[in-house]
């Protein structure tokens, strides 16, 4: 039986790599958090990492916009949009195909793409966590910005189904799950640059306390009002937290004004059993 060996989540704004040394004290603490998470990933010698992220109208357009989509390419190209990381990432199409089967059998009939290119929501975390990229990646897209969005309760259930599907993989593979997005930020809106530190702490506190059901009851209109449209990406965190089943350990949090985002980096304790 395969194991779910690691669950973690991080913000993904491009400024992390484009303006890395902004507010040096704050950014220094965050870079240290990513380094320690990367060391943890390296120690675990993972066979694949499922990266749960989104897209910003680079890969998906309105001609065909899935709620959830798994990437099954042997190699995934990065867009390198707006100066974000470019290049390619090794895929894990056999793992992805098994997960697609497992999730479909559990009532989550996801879309799949055999070519899915990746934007900064995948690439920035993979640059900061090179051990995850080296393990090989199953990209998992979640619609976080084109309403109607998949419900938070649905994301919670999806995370649990993902955990079960991972453990059902053949052999003794060690699989990681990394969610990316948030925390509070406003994209393409007049409030661009605002950060709601209180919201970010409330979210992190609930994750630390394992109170996922409470997060899942939040209303999207309220999240958007309080923490911006970018905070709707907390879906990726919720899926990851639900897959883990245990409390979050906050490795870093900074309200990064020069990056225009509340930046969080967490790992989650993975609970054995259903």
């Amino acid at each position, binding site marked *: 039986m395969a194991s779910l060996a690691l669950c973690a989540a991080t913000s993904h704004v491009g400024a992390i790599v484009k303006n890395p040394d902004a507010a040096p004290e704050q950014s220094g603490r965050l870079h240290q958090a990513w380094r320690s998470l990367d060391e943890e990933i390296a120690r675990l010698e993972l066979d694949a990492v499922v990266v749960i992220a989104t897209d*910003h*109208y*680079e890969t998906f*357009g*309105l*001609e065909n916009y899935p709620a959830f989509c798994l990437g099954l390419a042997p190699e995934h190209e990065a867009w390198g*949009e*707006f100066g974000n990381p470019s290049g390619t990432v090794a895929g894990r199409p056999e793992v992805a195909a098994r997960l697609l089967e497992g999730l479909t059998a559990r009532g989550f009939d996801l879309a799949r793409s055999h070519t899915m290119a990746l934007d900064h929501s995948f690439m920035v975390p993979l640059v900061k966590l090179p051990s995850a990229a080296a393990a090989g990646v199953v990209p998992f897209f979640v619609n976080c*910005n*084109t309403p109607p969005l998949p419900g938070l309760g649905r994301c919670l259930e999806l995370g649990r189904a993902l955990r079960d599907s991972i453990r059902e993989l053949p052999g003794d593979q060690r699989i990681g799950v990394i969610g990316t997005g948030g925390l509070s930020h406003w*994209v*393409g*809106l*007049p409030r*661009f*640059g605002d950060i709601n530190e209180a919201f970010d702490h409330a979210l992190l506190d609930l994750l630390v306390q394992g109170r996922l059901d409470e997060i899942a009851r939040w209303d999207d209109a309220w999240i958007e009002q309080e923490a911006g*449209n970018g905070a709707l990406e907390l879906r990726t965190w919720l899926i990851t937290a639900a897959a883990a089943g245990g409390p979050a350990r906050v490795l870093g949090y900074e309200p990064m004004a020069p990056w*225009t985002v509340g930046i969080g980096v967490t790992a989650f304790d993975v609970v054995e059993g259903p």
Partner: protein
Amino acid sequence: MSIVGLNRLARDLEHAPGLRERFAADPEQVLPGYALTEEERAAVTRRDAAWLLRAGMNPVALRNLMVTLGVAHHEMYQEGRST
């Protein structure tokens, strides 16, 4: 609002080789290829993020469009840009 036409335009301007330069030289050489209303074309030409947002364009797609057209993210709604 013509959300499909606007999103296609934003993506093409970002990715289609040479299109940005053609738009910069003369928007009217580019815009007729997209199903947009006269008002929408005018708003794109004057890079009016506030109008496009009010009319219903997705803010993420709008950000891509504005940045591609040379308006920085933090300048999208600055005084003098808004209508």
